[in-house]
C-alpha cells in the first residue's frame, strides 16, 4: 500500500494520525512569529561571539597573514560591516549590550566588576517567549554568581578563572551542574556542544548564542597550530616598542613575558583555531540542510591594541583599535547583494533588535539599539550619523571614565579627572595621532561635538538613530 498522501486512498486511522500531528504542530507553533520576511517559519539564529578580536584580524578585513577561510566565507555569503563598533569596549558591558540591546548605563553592567542584573531581558528570552529553542553556550563572564538565565533551554558556561575560562581542560557548568571538558581544547569543546544542540531533532526554530573564550589572552593555540605563521613578521605601529607590553599597567592585561612578535603570532593562531571551529559549525548547517534557514551573525566583544597609541590589551579607550569590531551577517535570501561590505555605522546594541526584526518581532522600546535589517536588505539604507560611546573605570586598569561621541568623520572624547578632551578627524587622521581639540580649527568643532555629546548622554538625540538636529551635525 502506498504510504503517500498524494494519489493514495486515505484510511480513517491515517486521517486521525494526520489530524493529530497537524494539530500538535499548529499548537507548537502558535507562539511563533507569523511571518518573517515572507517566510512561514522564522529562521534559526546562530550568533557567534569571539573575545578581544580586533576588527582587522580576518582575511576578509585585509589582515596581511592571518588565515580565516570560514569568516571569509561568511563575509562572501553575507555582509561584512566595515564600520561596526561597541558602545563600551570591555568584555562584560559589551556582552550585556549584545544580549539586551542596551547601553551599559542602562543594563547596569558598567565594567568587569559590576554584576549582571537579573531583571535584564535578553533577546534569547524574547525569542523563547516566541517559540524558539534557545541555548547559551560559552563564555558568560559577567560579575556576580551565574544567573538562572531566563528563556534559555541550555546554558553551558564556565566560571573558572573569574569566568575567563582556560584554553585547555576547562570544566563546564551545564544548566548549573559542573562537568569536565570532553575535548581538551575549549574552542573545540564549545563547538562540539553547539553541534549537539544544532543537530537535536526539533519542531521549533533555534537560537544559539555561541560565545568563545578565544581570542582572549593567554592565546594558547591547539598543538597542531603552534608552528603556524612562524615565518610571518608582525608589523607593529611606529609608536610601539617591545616594552610597551610591560609598562603603563599593561602587565594586568595578561601579557606573558616574551617577544611581542611571538605573542602576536599566538593571537593570530588562536584566531585561526577559532575560525576552523566556526567552519565545523557552518559545515554542520550545510550537512543538515539548515544553512538557508539560519541567520549567522559573527562578532567580537571589543577591539584590542597592539601598540597603537602606546597601548596594549583590551580596548577600553575610545580610539578606533578599541571600539571597532568584526561583524558579519549571513542571512541567505534576506540580504541584498551578498558578499558586499556595508559602511554604515552599526553598534553592538543594534544586534538584538536586528535579530528580533529579522524573525518578525518588533523590538521593544527598552532596546536602545536600532535594527540594521534595512541595511541588510538595501545597500543604500541610511546608517546613523553619530553615537554615544561610554566607558566606566574598571579597577585596576588605569583608564578613566570617559564618554565620547563618534560621528562618521570625527570622534570627540571627554574624560573624568585630569585628562583633557580629545578630538580627532578620523577621515584625515585615521590613526588618531593629532589631537585637534586645542587647535583653532578644532575648537569650534569641539564645542559643537561637546554639545552633541551632552545631548546624547541626556537622551535628547535618539540613541538608536543618532539623527542629529540643526547645527549639531558633526
Amino acid at each position, binding site marked *: 500500500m502506498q504510504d503517500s498522501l498524494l494519489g493514495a486512498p486515505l484510511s480513517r486511522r491515517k486521517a486521525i494520525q494526520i489530524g493529530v500531528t497537524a494539530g500538535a504542530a499548529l499548537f507548537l507553533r502558535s507562539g511563533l512569529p507569523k511571518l518573517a520576511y515572507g517566510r512561514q517559519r522564522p529562521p534559526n539564529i546562530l550568533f557567534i561571539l569571539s573575545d578581544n578580536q580586533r576588527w582587522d584580524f580576518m582575511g576578509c578585513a585585509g589582515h596581511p597573514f592571518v588565515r580565516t577561510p570560514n569568516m571569509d566565507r561568511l563575509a562572501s555569503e553575507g555582509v561584512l560591516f566595515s564600520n561596526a563598533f561597541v558602545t563600551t569596549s570591555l568584555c562584560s558591558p559589551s556582552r550585556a549590550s549584545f544580549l539586551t540591546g542596551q547601553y551599559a548605563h542602562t543594563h547596569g553592567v558598567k565594567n568587569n566588576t559590576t554584576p549582571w542584573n537579573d531583571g535584564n531581558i535578553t533577546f534569547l528570552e524574547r525569542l523563547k517567549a516566541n517559540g524558539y529553542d534557545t541555548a547559551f553556550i560559552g563564555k558568560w563572564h559577567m560579575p556576580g554568581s551565574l544567573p538562572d538565565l531566563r528563556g534559555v533551554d541550555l546554558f553551558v558556561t564556565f566560571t573558572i578563572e573569574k569566568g575567563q575560562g582556560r584554553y585547555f581542560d576547562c570544566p563546564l557548568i551545564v544548566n548549573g551542574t559542573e562537568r569536565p571538558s570532553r575535548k581538551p581544547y575549549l574552542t573545540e569543546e564549545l563547538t562540539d556542544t553547539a553541534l549537539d544542540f544544532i543537530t537535536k531533532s526539533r519542531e521549533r526554530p533555534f537560537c544559539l548564542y555561541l560565545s568563545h573564550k578565544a581570542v582572549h589572552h593567554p592565546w594558547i593555540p591547539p598543538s597542531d597550530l603552534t608552528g603556524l605563521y612562524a615565518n610571518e613578521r608582525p608589523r607593529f605601529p611606529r609608536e610601539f616598542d617591545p616594552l610597551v607590553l610591560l609598562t603603563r599597567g599593561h602587565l594586568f592585561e595578561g601579557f*606573558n613575558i616574551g617577544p611581542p612578535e611571538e605573542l602576536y603570532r599566538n593571537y593570530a593562531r588562536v584566531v585561526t583555531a577559532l575560525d576552523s571551529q566556526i567552519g565545523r559549525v557552518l559545515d554542520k548547517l550545510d550537512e543538515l540542510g539548515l544553512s538557508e534557514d539560519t541567520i549567522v551573525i559573527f562578532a567580537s566583544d571589543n577591539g584590542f591594541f597592539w601598540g597603537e597609541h602606546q597601548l596594549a590589551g583590551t580596548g577600553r579607550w575610545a580610539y578606533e583599535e578599541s571600539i571597532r569590531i568584526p561583524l558579519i551577517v549571513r542571512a541567505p535570501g534576506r540580504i541584498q547583494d551578498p558578499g558586499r561590505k556595508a559602511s554604515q555605522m552599526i553598534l553592538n546594541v543594534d544586534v538584538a533588535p536586528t535579530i528580533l526584526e529579522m524573525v518578525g518581532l518588533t523590538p521593544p522600546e527598552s532596546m536602545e539599539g536600532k535594527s540594521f535589517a534595512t541595511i541588510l536588505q538595501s545597500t543604500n539604507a541610511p546608517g546613523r550619523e553619530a553615537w554615544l560611546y561610554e566607558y566606566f573605570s574598571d579597577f585596576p586598569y588605569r583608564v578613566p571614565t570617559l564618554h565620547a561621541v563618534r560621528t562618521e568623520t570625527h570622534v570627540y572624547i571627554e574624560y573624568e579627572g585630569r585628562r583633557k578632551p580629545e578630538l580627532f578627524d578620523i577621515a584625515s587622521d585615521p590613526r588618531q595621532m593629532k589631537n585637534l581639540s586645542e587647535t583653532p580649527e578644532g575648537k569650534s568643532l569641539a564645542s559643537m561635538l561637546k554639545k552633541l555629546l551632552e545631548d546624547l548622554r541626556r537622551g535628547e538625540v535618539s540613541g538608536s538613530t543618532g539623527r542629529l538636529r540643526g547645527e549639531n551635525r558633526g
Partner: protein
Amino acid sequence: MNTSSLPARFIVPLSFVLIPLVASWLLYFNSWRIGHDVLHQWVAIISGLFLIAGLCLGSIVIYPLAFFRGARPVERVIACLAIPLIYCVYEICAVSGSFPPAESLYYGLNPTVWMVFVLTVGLMGVCEWVCRGVSRLRGAGLRVFTWFPLIAVAVLLLGVYFSLIWGNGAPLFYLYVDGYLALFSGV
C-alpha cells in the same frame, strides 16, 4: 670598616640608582616623540631596560655601596626600599586621575608593586651575604650566613612563585581584585 658621612653612605648610593632611573623614565616615556623610527626603537628599548632594571635590581647597586660606606643595616634597608616606595607613590599618583583616593591607595598594593618590593627585599638578602663574604675575605671578622638574609631570600622565592609561577600570576591578581571588591564594591 670606616663609616662615611650620612650623605656619602645613604644619599650617594641611593642617587646612583635613582638619578639614572628618573633619566631613563623621562627618556622612555618621551621616546615616541623622536621622529626617526629606528632611533626611537633603540632609545625606547635601552631606556626601558634601564628603567625596569633600576626598579627591580636597584638594590644590587645601592646595598653594597651603602654597606661598604659604613651604612647601618637600617640605613641600607631604607635606601634600598626607597626605590619601590617611590615607584609605589608614583603609581598611586598616576591612577589618582582615574580612581577615588582610597582606591588609588589600594592600587599601590597591586601585584606588580609587590613584586618590586619582594625583589628588592630578596636581593638585599643576597647582597648582605655577598658583602659579608667580601668583608670576611678582606679580614673582617664577620659571619657570612645569618638569618635575616635567609628570610629575605625566602620572601623572594615565595614572591616569585606566587607572582609568576602559580597560575602564571593570575590567581594572585584575582585575589587582589577580590580584595578590591570586598573593600569598595561590596560584591
